[in-house]
């Protein structure tokens, strides 16, 4: 290592320096947010808070954690995310597995039909009118069903399935295994990396999504609003103090650090999960680019 260090040129250190700057730009907003959420209102008003909390106080977190509406929204979004992830993974698997059989009749036609949906979309209003016709508007199922299969993710999974040798499958078939048991006992256990990746993609998509709830759920159904839409309404109210009071956050003076705490708290689940899955999703993103 020491002899290695000596060989380094100026350019190497410049690259390291640039990377540190880039990482700082990525992290600073989060650190600032954290500091603000832990600071007292006086310190915020006196413009003293930068990256370290001043006038340490945990009141905003206490308030977030005791607000029933927020807690319910958090729990509901968690349940929703779990359900969506499982349903979507099941749908994706059921679509990807049959598509790897070269001599499946109708495969070419289905492939074209599936690919078209990636590039041509009917548009927001036709989708809305269809959901209206299906009586899915104002129904919490609208947050699960219309987005339960992503063709892009299906292609990622299919590329991974292609990588599993046919001979394994054929051997099982000769032993009389059905396709369902081949899928369940061989393909799924062998595809843990791609399942981890797609579970992350679907979960993040659901956790972060708010536009479907905004469009398809009216205000009377706001108990089904996912966390992000709830958050959007808090952040975007003209007078945050009023809404904080309305939403149950009754002490108006706290609103600045309270907002920070709400935002901070809503990001925590994903920030805790994604680093552990990094080696998987890097692979997954790359698979998506593989052409058939």
């Amino acid at each position, binding site marked *: 290592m020491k002899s290695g260090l000596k060989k380094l040129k100026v350019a190497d250190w410049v690259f390291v320096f640039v*990377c540190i700057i880039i990482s700082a730009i990525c992290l600073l907003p989060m650190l600032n947010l954290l500091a603000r959420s832990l600071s007292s209102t006086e310190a915020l008003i006196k413009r003293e808070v930068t990256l370290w909390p001043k006038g340490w106080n945990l009141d905003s977190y206490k308030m977030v954690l005791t607000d029933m509406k927020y807690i319910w929204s958090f729990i509901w979004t968690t349940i929703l995310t779990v359900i969506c992830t499982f349903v979507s993974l099941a*749908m994706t698997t059921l679509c990807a597995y*049959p598509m790897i059989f070269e001599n499946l009749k109708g495969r070419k036609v289905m492939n074209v039909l599936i690919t078209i*949906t990636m590039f*041509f979309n009917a548009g*927001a209003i036709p989708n809305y009118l*269809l959901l209206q016709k299906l009586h899915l508007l104002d129904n919490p199922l609208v947050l699960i069903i219309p987005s339960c299969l992503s063709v892009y993710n299906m292609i990622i999974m299919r590329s991974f399935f292609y990588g599993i040798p046919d001979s394994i499958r054929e051997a099982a078939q000769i032993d009389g295994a059905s*396709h369902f048991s081949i899928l369940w006992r061989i393909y799924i256990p062998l595809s843990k990396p791609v399942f981890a990746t797609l579970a992350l993609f679907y979960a*993040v998509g659901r956790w*972060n999504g708010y536009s479907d709830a905004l469009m398809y759920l009216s205000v009377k159904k706001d108990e089904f609003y996912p966390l992000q839409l709830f958050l959007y309404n808090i952040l975007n109210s003209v007078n945050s103090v009023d809404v904080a009071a309305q939403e149950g956050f009754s002490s108006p003076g706290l609103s600045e650090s309270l907002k920070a705490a709400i935002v901070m708290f809503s990001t925590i689940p994903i920030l805790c999960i994604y680093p552990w899955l990094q080696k998987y999703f890097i692979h997954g993103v790359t698979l998506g680019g593989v052409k058939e």
Partner: protein
Amino acid sequence: MKKQKSTAVVPKRKMSFKVYMKKYWQLYVMLFFPLLYLAIFKYAPMSYIQIAFKKFKINRSIWEMPWADNHGFKYFIDAFSNPDFLEALRNTILLNLLDLVIGFSIPIIFALILNELVFKRFKRVVQTVAYMPHFLSWVIIYGLALQMFAPSNGLVNLFLNKIGMETVHFLDDPILWIFTYIFLGIWQSFGWNSIVYLAAIAGINPELYEAAEVDGAGRWRKIWHVTLPGIKSTIIILLIMNLGNILGSGFDRPFALQNNLVMDVAEVLSTFVYKNGILGLKFSLTTAIGFFQSIVCVFFLLSANWISRKMGERGIW
């Protein structure tokens, strides 16, 4: 009888339907739900596109609604004589072009820099940090931006004041808002988009680098003559995808970031359609706009793909 005979003579190449179904029926069962999903949620809405050419009547089925004036093109003509729509169209194109011009090269440069890093562990930490913004929702990024850019006590303005500059209203001033919007977009996606380039770089044959070294190439020449040509086709494919999306804009990002003070530059087609269609109930007009958007998107994709093939690159299909 005849059939049986022929199968007996010809060596069994083609399976009979019965044998084939016995072997494959389960696959069709598996495909049932995904195909049903696509039929209902992707193809059925396409039949509603005809609303763009018809007068919308709430109590009639779409097939029975009367055709709109001007041979059914009334709403397309309406759209293009509507100044608000034209403004949204301009904003969409402007914001997407700026995204492309300013943002497209950044993930490439970032991937090249990461690839040159000598410390592997440091590289991995930088990657993890750079992927983080991709996992934040636009509402959260909006929340972060509100706090960071707050005129009274946001971090950025505290810093600007400290070095003796005036307070800047990043989210209220239209021109500054555009650049904040572009910056936040790049901030959110540059790390994630670099993954594809890193993978492409990893796929370059190492012998090419060795050969370049033998020829006396230094670091910069290797980047210029080996790495960049090695990822050229990836760059072109992503450029095609981006060009195809020049009229498409996601909904989450513009909707979360826009506010009333900057609506002149912040209203894009997706938010315009939401406000006038779902909130304003102008279904025919907004369906026409959505259809126009989809057609342009397909047209751009096909032509970008065609051009790249003409240039001797592989297209996206």
